[in-house]
């Protein structure tokens, strides 16, 4: 009985996670005109990427969709901070990233 309840709770959690991911995935018609335009332009860039890069981005998209809303929000905030970096800060950050990545391996 206890096992069945645990399994049921796990299934509910999985369903809730899926529903949450769906809720945050918007439909094309829900995008503002500016957003649609940006999506179009990025779509064109995406199509011109080599196939392995497209697959790489697809995998990241799947991971992003599966994240909790708070984590997505955190990433968006970090992305805003990243975009606000001036060129010098950006260069330093990218150098640090390469170093961090090298140390991590």
């Amino acid at each position, binding site marked *: 009985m206890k096992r069945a309840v645990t399994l049921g709770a796990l299934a509910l959690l999985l369903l809730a996670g899926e529903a949450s991911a769906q809720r945050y995935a918007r439909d094309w018609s829900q995008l503002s005109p500016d957003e649609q335009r940006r999506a179009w332009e990025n779509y064109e860039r995406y199509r011109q990427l080599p196939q392995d890069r497209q697959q790489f*981005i697809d995998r990241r998209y799947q991971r*992003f969709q599966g994240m909790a809303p708070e984590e997505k929000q955190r990433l968006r905030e970090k992305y805003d901070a990243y975009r606000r*970096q001036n060129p010098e800060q950006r260069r330093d950050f990218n150098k640090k990233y390469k170093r961090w990545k090298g140390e991590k391996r």
Partner: protein
Amino acid sequence: MRCGRAQRWMTAAVDAELGGWRAQALERHLADCAECRQEQDRSERLDALLAGLPLDTPVSTQLEQDTLRRVRIAAADEAERPARFRLPTWITAPVLAAAAVLAVAVGVTRMSPTTTAGPAPEAPGVVPPVASVPAPAPRLAKAPPPRTADRAAAADVAPPEPVETPRVDPPPSDPSRRPDLPSEPPPELASAPDLFMDLNLLRNMEKLQHYDAIETTTLHEQDGEPPNG
């Protein structure tokens, strides 16, 4: 490893997204192959050049369109040229990209101060929107590998961060009014618009996930020198 594969992996390596045995194999190949090493140097220089561009520079729509038209014409000429007269991709791609960047940069400095800046696309680059609706394709079903001219354009897309490219004028409120923006999106775009909205975020996701750890990483005077050594 063959040079063709090495050059494909170099794109990921410039983004620091090539890990494990692939990175090691590429390093070994680069140690032995002067041609690929030169190509790698060129890619890194181009990356640095793009990274040095101002983040929020207003660019008029007219200038943007003129530049993109020139790039398209150059790419079409390149594609139509008989193979024996065609320069290798490793020459044409950086040259086309650098020409586009230079044209935008020159235009920015000459631009009238009355030009208005507005909300920008996430990362406007030199890849133009196309005039026709691409062939419908299911999401994750891939198009064939890019042709030479496409690879030139793709070279501008590959860098890791949203390249510090110029900001463009605000788009018209209704995208369907733009002559080169069809009103109906292809199924691939319509089914997952968020993927394309967040393209640059996704490309930089690893950096963003570890943003704080990266920020606290120490840089040494000589880039590439290991810490404490």
